[in-house]
């Protein structure tokens, strides 16, 4: 298991280096000059000399190879550089939003798993009964309804029925737990519904598949209690594809909640991502892409390790 974990960890390094190289050069191909966009953002009259001074200050006048070397050295020392738009360290810009985004992702995952596991199991075990149909209807609804729309409905509902809205600025969990949860539980629910629908459908289909396997029939023929058949043999195997989906969805939530964040006025990474792209803020986009890539490979690592825990064949391969 240790060797398996070490192998997986080592594989992360070339993946991240590949992402770093790609993101650096691809951003340079895209048209748009951050300095011009920034200095003329308000329609002001800015001389070419001022633009050149700013380009020099940001190091954009240096050869691309030198900029790339700088970026890679910075990455190795966990220095993501300075935002070209705000002139603040990229790490600082991300840190302000990261806590909120991770919290929403964790709460949505918790919410999704809490709903999806019993729903998916019930639907599979009561296949083609009215309960199954209801669950399928609920999950199809989750896939069909955009999270931001559900978010808007939640807000309008809270406003109409309770004349109340969640806080509009973020309070860290260690400052005020109640205030923090009061703000984030609603967006977590809005995105968690879609998330739970995806996972519930995955659990239902994989559980149905596993329940048709020979070893389940054998277990039942041997007279093993049904609860044991389901809990120990069927569910354990059926959860494997669901774990993959949960992991991928979690990584997506870190930077993908662009519209939902705006509905709830959340200061998250999704909004920052869109802003930094529209402002051609290369260093910030690079930092965000690396962060999200890191989340994806880390989540994949965790999923791989869980596979090994649930399925011994993986770790002994």
């Amino acid at each position, binding site marked *: 298991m240790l060797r398996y974990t070490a192998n997986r960890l080592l594989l992360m390094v070339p993946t991240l280096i590949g992402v770093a190289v790609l993101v650096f050069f691809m951003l340079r191909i895209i048209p*748009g*000059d951050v300095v*011009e*966009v*920034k*200095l*003329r*953002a*308000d*329609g*002001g*009259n*800015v001389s070419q*000399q*001022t633009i050149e*001074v*700013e380009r020099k*200050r940001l190091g954009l006048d240096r050869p691309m190879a030198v900029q790339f070397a700088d970026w890679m050295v910075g990455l190795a020392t966990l220095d993501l550089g300075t935002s070209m*738009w*705000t*002139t*603040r360290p990229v790490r600082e*810009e991300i840190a*302000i*939003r990261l806590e909120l985004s991770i919290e929403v992702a964790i709460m949505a995952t918790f919410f999704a798993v809490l709903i999806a596991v019993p729903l998916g199991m019930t639907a599979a075990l009561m296949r083609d009964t009215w309960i199954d149909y209801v669950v399928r209807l609920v999950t199809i609804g989750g896939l069909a309804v955009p999270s931001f729309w559900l978010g*808007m409905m939640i*807000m*309008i509902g809270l*406003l109409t029925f309770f*004349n*109340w*809205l969640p*806080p*509009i*600025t*973020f309070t860290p969990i260690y400052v005020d737990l109640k205030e923090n949860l009061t703000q984030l539980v609603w967006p977590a629910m809005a995105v968690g519904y879609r998330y739970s629908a995806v996972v519930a459908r995955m659990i239902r289909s994989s559980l149905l598949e596993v329940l048709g396997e020979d070893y389940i029939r054998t277990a039942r023929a041997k007279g093993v209690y049904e609860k044991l058949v389901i809990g120990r043999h069927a569910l354990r195997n059926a959860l494997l594809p669901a774990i993959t989906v949960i992991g991928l969805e979690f990584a997506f939530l870190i930077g993908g909640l662009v519209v939902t964040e*705006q*509905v*709830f*006025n959340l*200061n998250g990474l999704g*909004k*920052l991502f869109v*802003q930094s792209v*529209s*402002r*051609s803020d290369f260093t910030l986009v690079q930092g965000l892409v690396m962060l999200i890539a890191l989340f994806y490979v880390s989540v994949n690592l965790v999923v791989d390790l869980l596979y090994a825990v649930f399925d011994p064949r993986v770790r002994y391969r």
Partner: protein
Amino acid sequence: MRRLTTLRVLAAGLLAAGLAGWPAFADEPKRGGILNLAISAETATYDGIASDTFATMHFAAPFYSELLKFDLASYPKLKGDLAESWSVASDLKSYTFKLKPNVTFHDGSPLTSADVKASYDRMRKPSPGVVSVRQATFEDIGTIETPDPLTVVFRMADVNPGMLEHFASPWNFIYSAAKLAQDPKFPEQNILGSGPFRFVEHVRGSHVQGVRNDKYFQAGKPYLDGFRGVFMLQPAAMLNAMQGGQVLGEFRGISPAERDRLKQAMGDKIRTEESSWTLNLLVSFNTQKKPFDDVRVRRALSMAIDRWGGSQGLARTSTLNGVGGLMRPGSTYATPEAELVKLPGFSKDIGASRAEAKKLLAEAGVPNLSFKLLNRSIAQPYTPAGVFLVDQWRQIGVTVENLQQETSPYFAALSSGNYDVAVDFSNLFMDEPTLGLSKYVSFDRAPENRSRVIDRDIDSLFDKQRHSVDTKVRGDLIRQMEKRTLEQSYSVPLLWWHRIVATNAKLMGWQMSASHLLGQDLADVWLAE
């Protein structure tokens, strides 16, 4: 008996005084409370001289003071801010300001004439790397003298009749000379002012926060303990927050539909105020591109727009309303309607105008013209304006694609000239002609002229009006410049904006004006509960 009479008189007097005083007592400003307000954009810079957007103004104004301010109760009259008094030489060649004594910056350092001089020098002659969009405004200043710590004298190189109003520009924040000497770019990312509020924090993407400046030079002000400006980029989220009472105001402006929604939901708990707006939405034809280098094409496109009919419809759905020329309708130098309708594009007979427009396009050899309209992806009023223009031009056989872009790429395209026709705007804070007309002078003098034209006749008329002290002569020159601009149809007005501001009934002391850049320091604002 005498004692009884005295008591009666005293009681009657007290009662009368009480009754008379009651309304005044009810309107008495109350101290305390934190004001939450919405700011519908987030600024990249804190520096007033580098910006032209309300995002910077609504963020930074509560932290700074200026020499003069517009008195919104009797706009466009001026009042002193840092200036205790001022005098203007009869030949308009010098302006002398006496500063209020004992004014300090928020770090406790004294504010003197040296700070005023350093701030104005930075605006008119910025160091390399410092962006000043106010450079042209103050180019008529020759020298700035500081005979003593409380006196500043501006000696003019050229006469400018609008100069005093320019000293009241809300952008002229006074910075610390010492800080500017250390780093001329200091105000870009740091805040050190002498305004009613001290800076606490700017959490990027979230909010800006300030607390009361207890040493503010206006005794007893500000009334609030502090304020928090929350960045709310989504109008729906902002309206929800207004309705829920989480923010008590947004001072840029909302659309008629948003006003109606808030009124319906909140009844007398919401207050709405309306005014014409010192913002003019323009259509700029890129004269450096064919066929827009042909005056017939430009004029035809301007003449196809039914401004009078459009103002009726757009006023119901957007923040557009007033039909006017280059100066705001109703302002001193605005063209009267009787004269305006004689100018190309402003006739009330739209049928005849469009027939003439078709003829002009045919003469120019482009009867089936098609092009892209560069527009900004902000709902109000850009989207309805773009849709309206596409429809207007369709009626003379012109096919147009409304290309809406995010603010930054939109401005980048405008600056690089990468467009055929653009929806543009003129954003003013007062009706002073030199400020309002500077956008229409030749491109080599005014890069913000999005038609990118060089027209020395217009430049000449602009310069003559700029230095003219005779109001009548000046008015005639302005009218000639406007006629030339509209006949050549370089940049033409579409409609003037209409400002609607909704504030919670608890919010008191904030004053409505024709500009969303004025009156944002929150010094007079207080909370009724």
